[in-house]
């Protein structure tokens, strides 16, 4: 394709090809990412006969290069000549599917799955399926693990004899010597079951599932729990009891906490898969046991699922099941010894109120909320506070406000700044639910105190909080409650607090904006202008930055007569930064 004088177009491609083997990984990576450009220039013929063989042997490279290569090859069908030639992509992907790096192997498998769809049924049997077999019977476990992900894509499209072979291969891998392969097989079991005929699911998959679920390796057994969800979905209800439930029961009582943890973690999915009848008879007691498990990790995972589990219970006797079976366990968890368990529960417990309704909430749940609001661990209290909206809808927040206030105050003054930061973030939410009166009376002082916190992150969050409050309560409220206090800080002896004044003014102007030009011009502008004489340079350049923000709100008279002279003065300041920001403001406001 190169003409005698067509060098100009060849040169960039030549560079790309040479850089495929450059010493610098970044350049190699760059070249691989432009592999399609190279292939396009070489044409389909040379791509197949020269480029792909070269790439097949390049598996010595760095992981990130291999990862990029594996991804590229998934989109290469047209560049090798279309579906007719797509099988040419198999050798490089096959070698990538055996490297030790899991991410690369997974990407190669993903690309193989993708191009499998572009194979004709004949090519699939002639080229693709033999590759799957080679991988499945490879010497190293890396190739066998990769094979596990490929069965499900070829199975639906091959003849029944080949199907039988594929099932046999999968069976073999499920009892492989190495736990890595058994893990890979267990994790693909559900996916494979989905493409199998129902008879084979019952005859083949169930026995494999049972075997994997009682594997000697904990890490294999816990993956079988995941497969349980997909298998249960595939089977008719009447078969679940005999084919799936014995294994699931066994997993829920496994000796290893990691397996029980997995059951707890997948509980909602399991519940949906097995349906309401089995849930009522089997899963409710199993869930109770998980909530009482001796390992805190398991209890925490189960506690996380309390709301979802209750929501998905069959409606006809949901309330009864919750009240007699679940709630007693929940009550115990409120005073659990482990704080992760308590905080997991606190993040979902409020959700129960919508399910149980007003009376039950007041009688049974409210005492639990109140107990958690007094918990020694701040995370528990925070989780309750962050979910207040659920309760608000059912019983109104007033029921809680008496206990809420001490909890909030305590968090607001917590010695750990991250805790303070977390509670600040809930302030707008609380303000919205408690109303402006309650807020002014009880919480406003806290919000102001945060502005002079000794941690910058808190002052910053407090400023941002101010903005959200103003958005909620309106500019008039801002003018009466916030502005005077903020402006008062302009004379604070600490320059950090004086800067906070400027930051607050920035956000208030941003929220109140043009319609409240009055407040800005009359109250805030004079303060800002006065601060331009501050002795600390940081304050002065923040004045310049603030003026830049306030400027657009002001009328041209104020701009010309008041702002301009101040900025000009700052522009000739002795401090470099002050000068810079003043000049920037002048040009943005077009005052030059």
């Amino acid at each position: 394709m190169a003409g005698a004088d067509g060098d100009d177009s060849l040169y960039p491609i030549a560079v790309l090809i040479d850089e495929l083997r450059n010493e610098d990984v970044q350049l190699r990576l760059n070249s691989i990412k432009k592999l399609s450009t190279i292939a396009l220039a070489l044409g389909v013929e040379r791509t197949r006969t020269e480029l792909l063989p070269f790439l097949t042997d390049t598996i010595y490279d760095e992981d990130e290069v291999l990862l990029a290569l594996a991804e590229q090859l998934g989109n290469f069908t047209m560049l090798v000549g279309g579906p007719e030639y797509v099988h040419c992509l198999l050798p490089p992907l096959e070698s990538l599917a055996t490297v030790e790096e899991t991410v690369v192997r997974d990407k190669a498998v993903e690309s193989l799955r993708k191009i499998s769809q572009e194979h004709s049924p004949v090519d699939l049997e002639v080229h693709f399926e033999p590759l799957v077999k080679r991988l499945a019977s490879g010497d190293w476990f890396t190739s066998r693990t990769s094979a596990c992900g490929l069965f499900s894509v070829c199975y639906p499209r091959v003849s029944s004899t080949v199907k039988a072979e594929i099932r046999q291969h999968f069976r073999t891998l499920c009892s492989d010597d190495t736990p890595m392969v058994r893990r890979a097989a267990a994790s693909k079991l559900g996916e494979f079951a989905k493409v199998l005929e129902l008879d084979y699911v019952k005859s083949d998959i169930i026995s494999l599932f049972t075997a994997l679920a009682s594997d000697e390796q904990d890490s294999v057994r816990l993956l079988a729990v995941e497969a349980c969800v997909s298998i249960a979905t595939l089977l008719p209800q009447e078969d679940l009891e005999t084919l799936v439930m014995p294994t699931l029961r066994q997993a829920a009582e496994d000796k290893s906490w990691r397996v029980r943890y997995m059951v707890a973690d997948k509980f909602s999915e399991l519940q949906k898969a097995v349906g309401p009848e089995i849930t009522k008879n089997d899963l409710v007691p199993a869930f109770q046991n998980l909530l009482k498990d001796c390992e805190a990790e398991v209890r925490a995972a189960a506690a996380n699922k309390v709301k979802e589990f209750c929501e998905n219970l069959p409606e006809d006797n949901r309330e009864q099941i919750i009240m007699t079976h679940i709630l007693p366990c929940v009550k115990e968890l409120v005073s659990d010894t482990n704080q992760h368990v308590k905080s997991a529960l606190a993040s979902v417990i409020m959700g129960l109120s919508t399910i149980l309704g007003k009376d039950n909430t007041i009688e049974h749940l409210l005492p639990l909320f109140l107990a958690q609001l007094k918990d020694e661990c701040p995370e528990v209290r925070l989780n309750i506070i962050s979910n207040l909206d659920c309760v608000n809808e059912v019983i109104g927040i007033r029921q809680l406000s008496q206990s809420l206030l001490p909890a909030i105050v305590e968090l607001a003054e917590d010695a750990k700044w991250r805790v303070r930061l977390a509670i600040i973030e809930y302030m707008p939410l609380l303000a919205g639910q408690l109303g402006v009166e309650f807020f002014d009376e009880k919480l406003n002082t806290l919000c102001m105190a945060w502005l002079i916190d000794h941690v910058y992150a808190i002052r910053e969050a407090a400023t941002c909080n101010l903005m959200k409050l103003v958005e909620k309560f309106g500019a008039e409220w801002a003018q009466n409650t916030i502005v005077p206090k903020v402006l008062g800080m302009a004379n604070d002896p600490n320059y950090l607090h004086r800067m906070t004044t400027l930051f607050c003014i920035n956000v208030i102007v941003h929220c109140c904006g043009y319609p409240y030009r009055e407040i800005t011009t009359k109250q805030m502008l004079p303060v800002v202008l006065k601060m331009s004489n501050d002795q600390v340079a940081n304050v002065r350049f923040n004045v310049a930055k603030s003026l830049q923000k306030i400027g657009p709100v002001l009328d041209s008279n104020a701009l010309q007569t008041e702002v301009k002279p101040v900025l000009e003065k700052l522009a000739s300041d002795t401090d470099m930064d002050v000068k810079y920001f003043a000049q920037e403001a002048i040009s943005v406001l077009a005052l030059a």
Partner: protein
Amino acid sequence: MAGPGGDMQWCFSQVKGAIDDDVAEADIISTVEFNHTGELLATGDKGGRVVIFQQEIENKSQPQFRSEYNVYSTFQSHEPEFDYLKSLEIEEKINKIRWLPQKNAAQFLLSTNDKTIKLWKISERDKRPEGYNLKEEDGRYKDPNTITSLRVPVLIPMDLMVEASPRRVFANAHTYHINSISVNSDNETYLSADDLRINLWHLEITDRSFNIVDIKPANMEELTEVITAAEFHPHQCNTFVYSSSKGTIRLCDMRASALCDKHSKLFEEPEDPSNRSFFSEIISSISDVKFSHNGRYMMTRDYLSVKIWDLNMENRPVETYQVHEYLRSKLCSLYENDCIFDKFECCWNGNDSVVMTGSYNNFFRMFDRGHRRDVTLEASRENSKPMQVLKPRKVCAGGKRKKDEISVDSLDFNKKILHTAWHPQDNIIAVATTNNLYIFQDKVN
């Protein structure tokens, strides 16, 4: 197989390392480990280097010579570092090497110094790409105007090259010195133990590990015990043991709970009151613990003895072997020259019938469990003629010294064998003296 004191004789095969007596500190071997097939043998040294030896393909013409080990790859695993926060120097010395089960054509091993564990890949390359568009093979640039067609590089054969590349660095998880690493039978996790804590890592995740044992007391003044070694069970993924400076071994079950502070078994032998002395606690400290290949037993080494424990019996070991009982009367001087704190390791042979451990004066000991026989052998330059049979050595504990016996007082305590390894299937052993690695094998008749 026959016992070392019986039919089988050990003969010299190879010695690696410098011959001169002038030992450079960096050359002192600090760990020796065969891989799972025995084809590769790795050593680590105080200079942070790892040297890997490969067994040559069997030589058909000389059947009496079994294939020798030759250097396969050498690389710098760890560099000296300085912890600026604690003002501490971190030595580059390799404390332990553990091979991973082979997963593809490349080989992988974990190496650790006091603080940082690294996963290394050792791979072969026998092809190199050839052909540039813009330059000649010798690097001279071509005139871009002469390019009229594109050239795709091709791979051509070249001499075999072995590369070692660091794949993962597991750092910042240990406050104290790492004494052990051990790969789990699930092949995706491993543990690392320091003086007070044991962490569990995933081999593919470097930014977090789980603390599974923590024996640090709230008040460090109450510290009475440290962890000296830890190992996973060879088949049960949930079981591991750790030994302590008090001579106890705890077996933990990871299924029971996430934090294994409560052991499920405690192996401890009641102290013999008649042997009680000032040194009792020091010499009962366990310096190494190793599961047998079949997973039924474990072996521990303390200063004077090797003990074999049945995992089903906690109250006493099933076998106890005295390594150098004649030193019991010398403990005072061994304390003064710090030798009493030497950490001797121990190892099993391929079918768990013989155990081996080191001693002083470049002696090492083997105990045949079935035949209740033991032997003392010496690794020395004097017996280093090819296929020379090692003569059993005897130490005279007192009384009249017989011919061929060595008096306790003439033992050289600077020559100690701390690290030994036994080929996983064959009767080939690797024995590290200070800076030399000796390889011995049984005599093939």
